[in-house]
């Protein structure tokens, strides 16, 4: 490392601390302050640390709404990601292995799914017709519909690298299509599956707009929506608002620490193909 590289690195780090780390430090400091100091909304050291008190206040607020929200968000995320893996891999598999006119149709749908913004009110109309509006399973299916395009794209490009000989061998041994898929192909897709789980679960957990439209009602609250409930309720209680922000930020942070590599793989998928 040259002296120039070292000097540039130090300057860049200083900038990064000011621009990227201070906002997170601010969230943390605000979340441990007491009510009156937090109301100043300034960047100061807490005079009184009340991490635990704020934590339990936020959790118990509005009859433990945050816990319910965590539960709902977890159910939606796990359900939707599981279906996205299964459905996405099945489509990607057939798309890669069979060449026909349908491929163009499927590929067109994938592009449409990536580009077109969902039509909100007509979707509510469809959901109501199917009795899925304001239900958790309806929300899961919505997330599946919106996430499928990405998941098919990711799987189909990976399945192209798995030799056909493997399916052939299994077929000669007498395996049926479903057996080939579940016993041979799906286990081989593990690297992509991990990437997909990480990227999609963060996206669905952080989703605000779709639950806002399709999942109204107190019983159906999700994690991102609690931020707004708290904002109006604690207009002057900034310490609790920021504690809530902190609690919402922690799950992605944990995922990021453990799955950094898979996130990078997923986010750059298709970027360098050219």
């Amino acid at each position, binding site marked *: *490392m040259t002296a120039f590289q070292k000097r540039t690195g130090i300057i860049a780090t200083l900038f990064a601390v000011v621009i990227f780390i201070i906002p997170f430090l601010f969230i943390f400091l605000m979340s441990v302050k007491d009510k009156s100091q937090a109301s100043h909304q300034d960047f100061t050291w807490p005079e009184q640390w009340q991490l635990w008190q704020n934590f339990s206040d936020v959790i118990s607020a509005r009859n433990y709404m945050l816990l319910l929200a965590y539960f709902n968000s977890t159910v939606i995320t796990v359900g939707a990601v599981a279906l996205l893996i299964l459905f996405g891999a099945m489509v990607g598999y057939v798309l890669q292995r069979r060449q026909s006119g349908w491929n163009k149709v499927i590929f067109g749908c994938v592009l449409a799914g990536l*580009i077109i913004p969902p039509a909100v*009110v007509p979707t509510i109309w469809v959901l109501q017709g199917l009795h899925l509006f304001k239900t958790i399973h309806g929300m899961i299916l919505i997330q*599946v519909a919106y996430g499928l395009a990405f998941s098919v794209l990711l799987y189909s490009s990976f399945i192209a690298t798995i030799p056909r000989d493997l399916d052939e061998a299994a077929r000669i041994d007498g395996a049926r299509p479903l057996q080939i898929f579940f016993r041979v192909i799906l286990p081989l897709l593990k690297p992509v599956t991990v990437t997909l789980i990480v990227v999609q679960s963060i996206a669905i957990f952080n989703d605000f707009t779709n639950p806002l439209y399709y999942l109204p009602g107190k019983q159906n609250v999700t994690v991102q929506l609690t931020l707004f409930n708290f904002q109006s309720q604690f207009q002057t209680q900034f310490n609790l608002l920021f504690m809530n922000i902190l609690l*919402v930020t922690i799950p992605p942070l944990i995922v990021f620490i453990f799955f950094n590599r898979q996130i990078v793989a997923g986010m750059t998928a298709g970027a360098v193909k050219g």
Partner: protein
Amino acid sequence: MQRRSPYPYWFVLPAAVVFVTLFLVPTVAAFWFSLTRWDLYTATYIGMENFRQFFSEPYLVQGLGHTLIYAVLTSATKSVFGLLLAVLLTSGIWAQGFLRTVVFFPVLVSTIGVGLTFSVLMHPTKGLFNVGLATIGIHGPGWLTDASLALYSVALVDLWKGVGLATLIYIAGLAAISPDYYEAARIDGATRIQQFWRVTVPLVRPATVTVVTLSLIGGLRSFDLIWAMTRGGPGFSSDVLASVIYKQYQAGFYGLSTAGNVILFLLIALLVLPLTWWFNRREVDL
């Protein structure tokens, strides 16, 4: 008897059912409902009335302009800063790995959390932005309270949150460029700046296409950050199409809201399709 294919089409069926009913059907139905007065139960055909209303109400048309400004601005700044950061973070500087992590992390954080945090930091008198500026003698503006500035302040936060993804894509793009090009350029006596313009920029094109397209689509659809920071205000000065759609929906004007959706759809199609076509055509020329 014809041998059954080991790749039966019914594998596509579960995905197709969900995608068609919950995505394609509403998208197509939107075109019909945008021509109606609609309360979710009965729809009365009123022709182009919703669109006429949309383009005659100044605060609705403004939303269209804001959407364009916001999308173009965030997309352009993300690709410029993304490329510069990617070059910096692949040049072997001190603490490179740490810096990559720090720049990327905001991408994963809740948009609403970021929006609420920055709306406190941008408070006209108490916020860290203006307190910081005051220490060097600058009287900071009302970032979110000044109607002529609010949209740009939100775009700035969008850049802060999204630049990490652009950087990541550019880093992958830079890694795909063979070092031979740089060596050849050096032997020919090219300076660092010439190398950047003559080698890096042209050869990192695939990444540029991805970054510009992704962030343009994202910017045109953008809703949650704006909603968290300004709710389209002050007045209607930071309203974009997506927030107009939500407001009309809340007010019960379902037909008008859906017309907004159709306009957003057409806007994205009209911008993104020619852009992709242009990018692909240029590729052939090279």
